[in-house]
């Protein structure tokens, strides 16, 4: 006796969250059955393996049919085929678009192209995430990217409206889109210690302060592209290191403010000029797209690593950057206060996030 056909259809679509997760993780129906058995479901429920297999297959079929709709969440909400409570719909969408940390760290900042997709088997081998799951996550990135790429209005809101994600997840997708669009380098060995969360916060800062949207909220791509004019102007900050008087003045102001307040005062004093030069050179170079891509590696190499080697704590870094930014205001000869603030506030937030004790 062989089962030729076996289906179960509920008026309210039955969704088992555990099975959904297994499906999302890219396991085949057979693997999913094995995993469920391993987790002890047979003992808990007294079911037999064939019952479990039948149940798993039903769920997998349902998910396959739902997947088409999940590609466009507003469709899922308004479709008539699957009757599901709103809370269940939100869960389905949220989980479908949730991505794995190891995966996103591999792909973040890469062009979402066919070439990258071809390399996913390497990503899968490296991260231990199934290729199927990698593909889903990659396709999600690409889909979101394509939809919001050329849209007016705030990036996070656009993502929320078109994909009905939670604030948190929409923010993460904004970071992914922003990084992919600007192709920031995140994969170098020196950046490996950074988490996606670190980058997501940096992305948020950059979007808020350095994009077109930061100055004009009614332009295309406002949150996706950096403000070219701003980057152009950043070279004007060079005066802070090229003008010897300004540099000394700046240093003495910072040193006065920090004396006795940081443990690494001496190291700071000796290194001040190097650090200042590093930060301002990074700013001045941002006019070149290549250097924009290297922003994070530059921050790590030129600033974070020297501080690390001198055993700065993150509060030291925070104190220094605050004073370093504020002190420039007192420099009468320095005329680019607004530009300075816009640059330094963002860089400060990024460095603080990236500086792990």
């Amino acid at each position, binding site marked *: *006796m062989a089962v030729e*056909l076996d289906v179960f259809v509920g008026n*309210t679509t*039955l969704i088992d969250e555990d099975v959904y997760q297994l499906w999302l993780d890219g396991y085949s129906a057979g693997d999913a059955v094995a995993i469920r058995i391993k987790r002890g479901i047979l003992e808990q429920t007294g079911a037999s393996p064939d019952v479990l297999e039948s149940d798993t297959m039903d769920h997998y079929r349902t998910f396959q049919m739902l997947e088409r709709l999940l590609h466009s969440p507003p469709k899922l909400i308004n479709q*008539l085929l699957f009757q599901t409570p709103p*809370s269940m719909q939100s869960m389905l969408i949220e989980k479908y678009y949730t991505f794995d940390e190891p995966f996103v760290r591999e792909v973040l900042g890469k062009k979402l192209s066919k070439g990258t997709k071809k390399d996913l088997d390497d990503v899968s081998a490296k991260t231990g995430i199934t290729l199927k799951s990698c593909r889903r996550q990659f396709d999600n990135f690409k889909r979101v990217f394509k939809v919001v790429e050329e849209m007016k209005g705030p990036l996070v809101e656009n993502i929320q409206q078109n994909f009905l994600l939670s604030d948190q997840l929409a923010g993460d997708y904004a970071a992914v889109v922003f990084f992919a669009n600007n192709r920031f380098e995140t994969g170098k060995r020196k950046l490996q210690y950074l988490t996606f969360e670190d980058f997501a916060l940096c992305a948020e800062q950059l979007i808020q302060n350095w994009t077109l949207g930061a100055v004009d909220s009614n332009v295309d791509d406002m949150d996706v592209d950096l403000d070219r004019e701003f980057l152009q102007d950043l070279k004007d900050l060079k005066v802070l290191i090229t003008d010897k008087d300004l540099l000394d003045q700046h240093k003495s102001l910072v040193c006065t403010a920090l004396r006795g307040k940081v443990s690494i005062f001496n190291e700071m004093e000796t290194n001040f000029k190097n650090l200042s030069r590093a930060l301002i050179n990074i700013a001045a170079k941002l006019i070149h797209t290549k250097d924009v891509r290297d922003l994070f590696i530059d921050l790590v190499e030129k600033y974070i690593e020297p501080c690390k080697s001198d055993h700065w704590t993150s509060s030291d870094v925070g104190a220094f950057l605050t004073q370093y930014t504020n002190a420039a205001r007192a420099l009468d000869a320095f005329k680019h206060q607004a530009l300075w603030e816009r640059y330094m506030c963002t860089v400060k937030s990024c460095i603080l996030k990236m500086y792990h004790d």
Partner: protein
Amino acid sequence: MGEDADRGGVSSVGVAACIQRPGSYSFLFCGPWRLVQPCRQSTGPRATMPGKLKARIVAGRHLPVMDRASDLTDAFVEVKFGNTTFKTDVYHKSLNPQWNSEWFKFEVDDEDLQDEPLQITVLDHDTYSANDAIGKVYIDIDPLLSNEAAASLSGWFPIYDTIHGIRGEINVMVKVDLFNDLNRFRQSSCGVKFFCTTSIPKCYKAVTIHGFVEELVVNEDPEYQWIDRIRTPRASNEARQRLISLMSGELQRKIGLKVLEMGGNAVVGYLQCFDLEGESGLVVRAIGTACTLDKLSNAATSFLPPCSSPSKDLKEVPFSEDPNPVTHSSGPSTPLKNQTYSFSPSKSYSRQSSSSDTDLSLTPKTGMGSGSGGKDGGPLKALYRQQTQSAFEHREFPFFTLTTFPPGFLVHVGGVVSARSVKLLDRIHNPDEPETRDAWWAEIRQEIKSHGKALGCHAVVGYSESTSICEEVCILSASGTAAVLNPKMLQDCSMEGCSEHRLSRQPSFFSTGSEKGEFDFFLQCQDSASLLGLDDASSLGCSFCHIPYDELNMPFPAHLTYCYVCRKQKVPDVLFTTIEPPLEAAITGKGCLIQARLCRQKKKTQGEANATAISNLLPFMEYELHTQLMNKLKLRGMNALFGLRIQIAVGENMLMGLASATGLYVTALPAPGGIQVAGKTPSDSSYDQHIANIQKKINDLIVKNREIYEINPPEILDELLGSPIPETRQRSRLFRSHSESSDDVPELDLSHGKKDAFVLEIDDTDAVEDIQSLLTDASTPSGFYSCNTEVMPGINNWTSDLQMFTSVRVFRLNNVTSLTSQGLNKTFSDVCENLLKTLYFKLRSMVPCCLCHVNFNVALPEDELIQVAVTAVALTFDKDQTPYIKVGTDKTLSRASAENEEQLQFTLELCMESQATQSTALFSPAKAADISESGHLQAVSPAIQTVASLDKASPLAEAHARHRSPISCATSTVTVVEMTPLSFIPGAKIIKYLGIINMFFIRETTSLREEGGVSGFLHAFIAEVFAMVRAHVAALGGNAVVSYIMKQCVFMENPNKNQAQCLINVSGDAVNFVKESDVEYASTQAQGSGLQAGNGSGDIVA
């Protein structure tokens, strides 16, 4: 077989083996024109243009990409009714077109309105080639024709294509303006309401129940016409869908005319079926119960005195039984209720004509049923019988498709009557005169009627008909429950009104577990009975068990005892019925689903030889199914079956029988005896040991089952009841002692001498296996109950969670011929058991829950394939609360809902109110989380439903939703629609019936593998059918389908060609309900503000 093995409730199984000779095949092609204008009588003057149908196409969404180049679609819509077609403009380059068309107006006569569906076709405009069809929507106009229902419908409908399935949605508005013409000769029956529900619908009261209506229409099946060879599968499927839609419209109209003739205004328990006879044609047939219903508008009408017709009052006799029971020594011989057929099949089954059979059974039994009434000493009883008989004389078939009755309506139940007949199909020569099929059914009904009479009953209730077709052989089956009805109630029954008092104490009958409780129960009943001045028997809820036939002249050997409740009337020891447990019935403990399953091989033959072979097999199958049911019933310690449904499916080389019923312990009937295993007579000690082991297992199981189902029958308080009967007291003692100490097995072991021991003889290996299978039937997992009736007696505190589902399985048997008949049985039994186990596993999150109305359908689609389809609803209930606390709500929760409040006026406020609550819930995620945490994921809040229905009329709602924050986007435009096979929704009040849903769909694929194989294909199709049903209900302004049934699911596959086809036919009643909690809230709100809103359907935008 033991001498006792044949007793039981299936009283009669007559198989009329009338074999129709294959007629001459001089068939004339009538051509495809019939599809356009199907058989219709054109006699009588016809009203011209009594109505105007208006349709407007608003918008589409989620359309498929039809132009690969642009990834877009240039869609337009054709709207067709009858022979008139309108078109919208082409909406270029969009997957979400906004046509916003004008109102297309069709001037039509009402006959067309009833027969024809509105046909909406969505097409993709193509400048250079033919326009491509995207899909269609058929809208049944009939629900709009009743003067009570909504005059318009509006909403999103799935665009359906028989090859591709659902392809986007379309927003349509439809209105009907009926001109009130008084043409007496009209062909239409507009305004007659149809209900699938097999009880008096909740917001109505029955003024009169007129009786049985039936009709059938036949046609050629387009699938088998010559033209089918040259047209596409799509065209063929659409022709078939349209034809069936037309035929069911016509059928409904004809039945409606019959109802009008009878003076009724509604059909309740309407059951329409299709017989796909293949080459020989397509039959659409329907049965139902004609009624005159009155809408319950306020409390006053529902409390009208029951007897409103003075002329009838004079004739009425007290609704009572003989009050002086003759003490009677019940014969210790063979007990109760036998089939009327003898077990020598050659004698009664090979007869070539059914008429002689009918005569045979008629002659001796009619006399017994009425004439001998005087003999048992009760003159009143005799008078009563005569009265009831006169009330039924004018009815050709005193049949009722109802399964639930107002208390007092059902006086006595005799037992199950059934009849089957094997026929050879031949071409239907003249579709306009479907006499052959009519004659076949008339014959069977006659048989049923005579069987009913044999049981001393003048009526058959819970009546249904079915067919099973394989190639040219067709088995027609009919079954029902012979019963005696209260004639007074038939004539003028203000039923709901008179039922109020009795219902109010109904819940206390259930779950009588402890002796203490039982004591109270008796006292209470006696009190209330005397207060109400009602007859003891009727108020005690035992009268329906009292035998309707004459005990001195019984139609079959039966074992009678005095009723265990009233102690006055005789009752059988087992009762089988096809109806729901009567509301007033006193029931001990809980019940369970009991199934008997059977496979029989037969030789592959043709024509008459085949029909004869089947006819010969049928009685054996009926007998075996019956024995199985009996064994399983006793094994569970129960004594009655309700909702019995025996299905016989015929295949090429097999016959399959599946009997399903809900076993219960009816308090009025005696406790069932045990099962006694007897070995063959010359035996050795090891064999005896084996027998003893089996016996012990059986006894243990009975004890265990009694615990599971809480069957602790009351200790009979003889002093309280008077008239002690020594014999029964002894038995109750025996029973009690065993329930006190379950270890005390020997007490249960009813020895040979005891007459109620049920003896199973193990004289061959077959019997051993039978017993093994009896013992291996898996029990329901804890937390679950199952039944095939509407609800489980003993569970009253239902919560509002419900999950309707359909599960289909197809099994391939390898080498059928090599299997023994026992092996085959076991396989089939395993199939059913496994299916049930899967259901329990899938629904485990709903525990504690009860699978209600579990409806199995078996078919043998091909040589070695068995198809089993199950539709049921899982209802959760509250375990902690005792029924006594919830008595107040139980009344409305369970079947006994009494609709007499004014609440339906407040729908409008309710919508507003719930919208407010809904939006607050949506904007606070914490609250949403709460809801999901507490495990109510299945629960659909009414607020969502009403909000959605407010939104749905406007296609702008979607765009509107987009601009809200993400969580609020979850307010979709989709109305949540509950579907349930039950006639009610727990925790809710049905406020309006919106019309019958009767839909037929065909789905075909030529890319089976790509669609996920047969399972993927069918899974998607069933989901699509559900979606289309929901969309139609929502468009009518409803939020639920009750009495939903999947009547047919015909699946055919050809994996080699990568093809499959499936036909599904579903029906139900579209309703609008409000949750009970909301009703209370809304009514207090409305009273406070003093608002009066007359519009009950505020969510319909006309």
